[in-house]
C-alpha cells in the first residue's frame, strides 16, 4: 500500500474514478447483452428497468455499447502507453548513454515526427487504412513515443555524465545496476505522470478520429463515433448523446487527475 499512500488526494481520486469505470467497462458484458443487436421496435427507449441506460436509434442497448466503447478506449490507452513508454524509455536511455550516431539518428526520427502536429499524423495514418485499430494504435504510440524519448533522454544525460554514476561504474557495477540505482529513480516520477497523460491523450485521439468519421467503423461502439451518430437525435433523446460524452469526459478527467502534476 506504500504506493497508494505516496499519491496526492488528486491522484487517489483519479484512481478511484478509473477503477469504477474499469469495473463498469469490464463487468457490464457479464449481463450478456450484445452491443450490436438491434431492436427497432424499442428504439429510443428511455432509461428504465429493461435497459438501464436506454436504447439508441437502432434499439441497441446503451449500457452494452457504452461499456464496449470504454473497453476499446481502455485497451487502446493501455497498449499505446505501454508500447510508447517501453520503447521511449529504452531509446531515450540508449541515446543518452551511447550518444554518437545512435543519438543523432534517434533525434532525427523524433524531430521528424515532431515536425507535424500529433493529430495530423494520426489522421494521416488513419487515412491510409480506414477503420483500422492497428493504424490508430501505431500512430498514437508514435506520437507518445516522442514525448517519452525526449523526456528520458533529457533527464538521463546529466545523470550519465554525473559523478555518482561514474564512481559506481568504477566500482565495477553492471549496466543494469547503474540503471536501477541511478537512472530509474531520476526518471520514474516523470515516466509515471507522462504515462497517465499519454493515456488521456490516446483516449482523446481515438475519439477524435471517430468523431470526424475516419476512425473505427460502425457498428463498433467507439465513444467518438457514438457521439457523432447520436448527435442528430439530440432533441428526441438528449440523454443518449450525453451518455458517451459523460463517459469520455470521466475517462479523460480521471487520467489527468492520476497524472497529478499540471501540464
Amino acid at each position: 500500500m506504500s504506493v497508494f499512500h505516496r499519491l496526492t488526494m488528486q491522484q487517489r481520486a483519479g484512481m478511484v474514478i478509473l477503477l469504477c469505470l474499469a469495473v463498469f467497462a469490464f463487468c457490464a458484458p457479464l449481463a450478456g447483452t450484445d452491443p450490436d443487436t438491434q431492436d427497432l421496435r424499442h428504439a429510443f427507449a428511455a432509461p428504465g428497468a429493461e435497459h438501464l441506460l436506454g436504447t439508441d436509434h437502432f434499439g441497441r442497448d446503451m449500457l452494452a455499447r457504452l461499456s464496449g466503447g470504454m473497453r476499446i478506449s481502455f485497451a487502446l490507452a493501455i497498449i499505446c502507453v505501454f508500447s510508447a513508454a517501453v520503447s521511449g524509455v529504452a531509446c531515450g536511455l540508449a541515446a543518452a548513454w551511447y550518444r554518437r550516431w545512435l543519438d543523432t539518428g534517434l533525434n532525427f526520427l523524433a524531430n521528424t515526427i515532431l515536425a507535424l502536429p500529433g493529430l495530423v499524423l494520426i489522421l494521416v495514418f488513419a487515412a491510409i487504412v480506414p477503420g483500422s485499430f492497428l493504424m490508430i494504435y501505431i500512430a498514437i504510440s508514435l506520437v507518445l513515443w516522442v514525448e517519452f524519448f525526449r523526456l528520458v533522454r533529457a533527464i538521463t544525460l546529466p545523470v550519465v555524465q554525473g559523478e555518482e554514476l561514474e564512481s559506481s561504474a568504477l566500482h565495477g557495477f553492471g549496466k543494469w545496476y547503474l540503471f536501477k540505482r541511478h537512472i530509474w529513480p531520476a526518471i520514474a516520477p516523470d515516466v509515471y505522470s507522462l504515462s497517465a497523460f499519454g493515456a488521456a491523450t490516446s483516449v482523446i485521439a481515438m475519439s477524435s478520429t471517430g468523431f470526424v468519421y475516419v476512425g473505427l467503423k460502425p457498428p463498433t461502439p467507439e465513444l467518438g463515433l457514438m457521439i457523432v451518430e447520436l448527435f442528430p437525435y439530440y432533441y428526441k433523446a438528449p440523454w443518449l448523446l450525453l451518455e458517451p460524452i459523460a463517459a469520455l469526459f470521466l475517462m479523460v478527467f480521471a487520467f489527468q487527475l492520476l497524472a497529478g502534476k499540471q501540464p
Partner: protein
Amino acid sequence: MLKILLSRLGQCLLMAWSVGTLTFILTRLLPGDMAYKIATGRYGDDAVSTAAANAVNAELGLDRPAFQQYLVWLGDLITGDLGTSLVTGAPVVHELKNQMSFTLVLAFWAILAAALIAFPVGLLCGAKAETVPDKASLITSTFIRSQPVFCLGLLLIFIFSMELNWFPVAGFGSAEYAVLPVLTLALSLAAVSNRVVRNSTRQAVNSAYFHFARTKGLSYAQAFTRHVIPNVIVPGLAFMGIQLIGLIEGVIMVESLFAWPGIGHGLSHAVFARDIPMLQGTALVMGMLFVAINTLVDISQHYLDPRTRLEN
C-alpha cells in the same frame, strides 16, 4: 535572429519531406493493389472494375516504379505543384489557398479571444489567489481541459444554439457563424494558459521586488502595472505559443464540427475520401502553419524578453 529563422526553415523542409515520404511509404506498404484501393475509395465498393482501376493507374502513373514516383512527387513539391484533388479535380494548391483564408480568420480571432480571456482572468486570480474567483477558475479550467475540444464545441452548441437559439449551429456566412467556433477554440486555449498566467502573477506579487516597490511608496496599482504585468506577459505569451500546437489540433476538430470551410475541415474530408494528393497538401499546410506559429513565438520572445537577446 537569423539562427532562429534558419533552424525553423530546416524544420519546415524536414516536415515537408516527412509528410511526403510517410504518406508515400504507407500507401505502398499496404497489401493489395493500390489502383483498386483508390478506385474503391472513389467510386465505392460496388462500382470497382478493372477498367476503373486501370483508369486510376494511368491517371496517377502508378504503373511506374515506386522510386520513380517518389522522385516525381518530390520534384513537383519543390516547384510548388501539389497535384490535383481526386475528388473535385481542382488543383490542390488552389483549394488550399481558399481554405487557408478561412482557417487564418478562425485562428486569428481564437488567439485574440484566448488572450483576452486568459490574461485578465489569470491576473485577477493570481493577485487574489485562493479566493472564490480563483477556485472557480480552477474548477472551470479543469472541466474544460478534461474533454476533447469537440465535446466542448458540442456543449456550446447545445447551450447557445439549441437551447437559447442565439447563434447558428454550423456553417459559414455572416459574423455570427464564427462566434461559436472561435469561442470553442479560445476557451480550450485559455483553460490552460489562464492558470499559467495566474501562477506567474502570484509569484510576482509575492516577490521581493514587488514588496520593495510597495515599500518605497508606489500604490498597489502602480506597482502592479510596473512590476507584475511585464513579468507575467513574457512567460504567458511563451506558454500560449507552446499551446498553439494544440490550436492546430483544435482547428481540425472545430472546423469539422462547425462545418467551417478551412484546412482542418479539408484535412478530415481528404482523410474520409482517401484523396491522397489533397491529404498530402492539407497535412503539409497544417505542418507549415505549425512551423510558422513557432517562428512567430520565437521572434516575439526575442523582442519581448531582453534576456534572450543577451544570450545571442
